[in-house]
């Protein structure tokens, strides 16, 4: 799937595309966590680092809304099905992790891993759903 094929009308510049914003958000989250762990910054700096991924997530939402508005009806259907698949998959993963935890398998995963995992599931389900209509 090429980026240009996804939009029927206006094609967003790369920096306004949700895929770019998703990468930016993952980088912001990973970067903020790494800096806090490695440098142990002051309380004020930690606050800034804590808000940084939120700003990146807000940017992602903005690009998503703009992107969906440029899509035609089939592309919107593909995105809706992809989101449904991704969220269903995420719920299955959460249930599986929960039972693994109860069974004594303590995986080193936290809430900061949830959004990147959801993004990966969304990307995979988009590829699958797009292929269904080709």
């Amino acid at each position: 799937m090429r980026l240009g094929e996804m939009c029927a009308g206006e094609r967003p510049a790369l920096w306004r595309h949700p895929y770019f914003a998703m990468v930016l958000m993952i980088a912001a989250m990973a970067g903020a966590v790494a800096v806090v762990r490695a440098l142990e910054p002051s309380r004020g700096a930690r606050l800034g680092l804590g808000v940084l991924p939120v700003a990146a997530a807000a940017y992602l939402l903005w690009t998503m809304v703009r992107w969906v508005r440029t899509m035609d009806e089939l592309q919107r259907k593909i995105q809706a099905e992809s989101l449904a698949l991704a969220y269903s998959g995420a719920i299955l993963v959460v249930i599986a992790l929960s039972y693994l935890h109860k069974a004594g398998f303590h995986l080193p995963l936290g809430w900061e891993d949830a959004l990147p995992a959801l993004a990966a599931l969304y990307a995979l389900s988009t590829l699958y759903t797009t292929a269904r209509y080709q």
Partner: protein
Amino acid sequence: MINRLRVLRAERSWSQAELAERLGVSRQTVNAIETEKYDPSLPLAFRIARTFGLAIEEIFQPDGASADTD
């Protein structure tokens, strides 16, 4: 739903991209309609009919159209 989109497009020597541009949709959508993997909405079906200068039922038919009319 079955349709004659590919035949009508071929009669006019339009590419999928050209038809997509006329309809204001993506080439992927035109392809999905032609291969009958996706049924267009009523507004898009009207746009398609207007583009070809035909009535909707001259382009789109329900799957069991011939059996229904017998």
